[in-house]
């Protein structure tokens, strides 16, 4: 069992997200994260799904996704050379003084931006791979995380290679 990153090119139509999420739930596949948005190809969206499973399960995931009429292309890019990012917003308890200075120092090290400052809290914005965000979350926990929200992972193949609609 390991985490796989699946990249899907889909028709940008009403209901396509529910077709895909429904497929995952009824076939018992475990979604870790899912990110979707429009892309450079007209009428299409790109989706990045992180799934936990063994090789046979991932094979089924890919085949079942391919059966959906609105799915144009499915690629498992786990073992390929990719860049991948997640974005997180973290609201941390940070009273003015030493605490706030400590939070800001950690933010600096992680190249996180402070995008909101309140009387008793600050909000950090950070991008990076999952491990980086996990590490930042762990460090900030001692100060008290009030709210934490993160997107799913998005990924692209490095260099010239790409995932295009032409099969």
């Amino acid at each position: 069992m390991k985490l796989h990153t699946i990249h899907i090119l889909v028709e940008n139509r009403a209901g396509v997200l529910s077709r895909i999420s429904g497929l995952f739930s009824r076939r018992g596949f475990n979604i870790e994260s899912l990110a979707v948005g429009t892309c450079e190809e007209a009428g299409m969206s790109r989706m990045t799904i992180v799934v936990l499973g063994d090789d046979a399960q991932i094979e089924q995931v890919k085949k079942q996704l391919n059966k959906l009429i609105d799915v144009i292309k499915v690629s498992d890019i786990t073992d390929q050379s990719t860049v991948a990012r997640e974005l997180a917003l973290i609201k941390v308890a940070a009273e003015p003084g030493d605490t706030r200075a400590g939070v800001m120092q950690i933010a600096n090290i992680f190249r996180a931006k402070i995008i909101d400052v309140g009387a008793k809290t600050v909000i950090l914005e950070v991008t990076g791979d999952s491990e980086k965000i996990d590490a930042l979350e762990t460090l900030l926990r001692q100060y008290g995380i009030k709210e934490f929200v993160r997107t799913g992972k998005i990924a692209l193949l490095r260099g010239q290679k790409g995932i295009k609609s032409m099969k």
Partner: protein
Amino acid sequence: MKTGAKLLVESLQREGVETIFGYPGGAVLPIYDELYDAPIRHILVRHEQAAAHAADGYARASGRVGVCLATSGPGACNLVTGIATAYMDSVPLVAITGQVPTFMLGNDAFQESDITGITMPITKHNYLVKRAADLGQVVKDAFYIAGTGRPGPVLVDIPKDVMTTQLEAEPPIGRAKLRGYQPTYEGHALQIEKAVSLIGEAERPLLYVGGGVIASGASEDVRRLAELMLIPVATTLMGLGTVPCDHPLNLGMIGMHGTEAANYAVTECDLLIAVGVRFDDRVTGKIDAFAPNARIIHIDIDPAEIGKNKPVDIPIVGDAGKVLQSIIRRLIKKEGRETWLARVRHWKEEQTVRDGDDGLSPAYIIREMSDLLGDHGIVVSEVGQNQMWAAQHYCFRRPRTWISSGGLGTMGYGFPAAIGAHFARPDETVVDVAGDGSFQMNIQELGTVVQYKVPVKVVVLNNMYLGMVRQWQELFYDRRYSYTELPAVDFVGIARAYGVDGIRVEEREEVRPALEAAFTTDGPFVLDFRIEREANVFPMVPAGAAINEMIGRRQA
């Protein structure tokens, strides 16, 4: 100027639709108004579930796409069981539903249900058409998706205001071209080469064939491969009729209620050639013990079926007929194979067992029916013991003459499906083999057969039980018959009340004359056979056991 409803009906005509099974209601009134004088025959059923099953039966008997029509809300929801039945058995179906007007969508309007949401997991694809201009292309694509690749049901949901929209100009309709849907028909050449050499080397090969062969029209190819290479053939429930029952290489049905010959052969074979099958649990029993000594070639048009339940050695994605033809072309006729064929023959001889006693045995009724109909019948079944007795004891010789709900196991399927089968093949005698439980699930369709003079014959194997459940209670629940006993019903009386003729049969000697009376009557007919109440379907592989661990023996 033309309305969306008119465009819809014209699009259906363009697809060659001659018959629709449906039930009107508020949200489909504009479509019904168009159907009033359209050259399409509409069969009014008595419950929308029957419309879906009838369209399914029509599709299975003919190989064409079946069409059903229902109103929004309850009408659409009543189609659900029928759509799911078609989905599980890969039957090409287009279901058209009315919907509340677009401006009311999502407002819990009267008779609104989110039928595209509801049917997403049980359709190959579905559409909610929000613009009248899209209707023509959607219908084109829907029929294309339903009838090609691995066939399946497609639902088209049309809001009422889309039906009444006046279109200035008719938008052009291209041929169906979907960038996310391109089925593979030709098998991969290298894989075919590998299959050819495995078949050439095998000492104890077995063909395991199912519904995909019927759908592909590949029955003749299966028979040719079997005869060329001297390979015995086991068919699934869905594959009955692929090879004639009395063909020397036919082993009969494989699976939970399969024959000894088929189930033993799969256990001992060294090469399993699986064609148009999906290694369903009712076929394989304990999956690890299925074909334990065999290398496996799996030919299927749906790549997702290959390796889903059982790892295979040679996967071949493609149309069963095309792939088999490529394989056959490369093979050299096999001589001999005496040991394996003798072993298989021995099982076949051993499996026929004790003579049925003097009682009214279901096996006897089915065999008499088979004898009388010869090559002129289509047998449709309900689900349960009646289905298994029909599958075991009727001699199927041609594809598309056995119509049964295999995957979903839908009680109540048979009677409406038989009505659909009649409209597809009016030249054939269509018989619904039923149980008293199943028949009562869609018994209201007696109204339909009377209205349209549908000469379907209903053979009720009446044991006043939900027989298959009772059998499991007898065998595995210490004979505690919890809620499986049904009081006696006078089916002949019910039939007569609708205007259908019928006979009740209680003695063995009356069986043949009663069947003859039914088959020579022009109209519909109901035969109420009061069979031995606790007759069981044997042999049987208990759930979870290996496929060769069979209990009980088949009645003669």
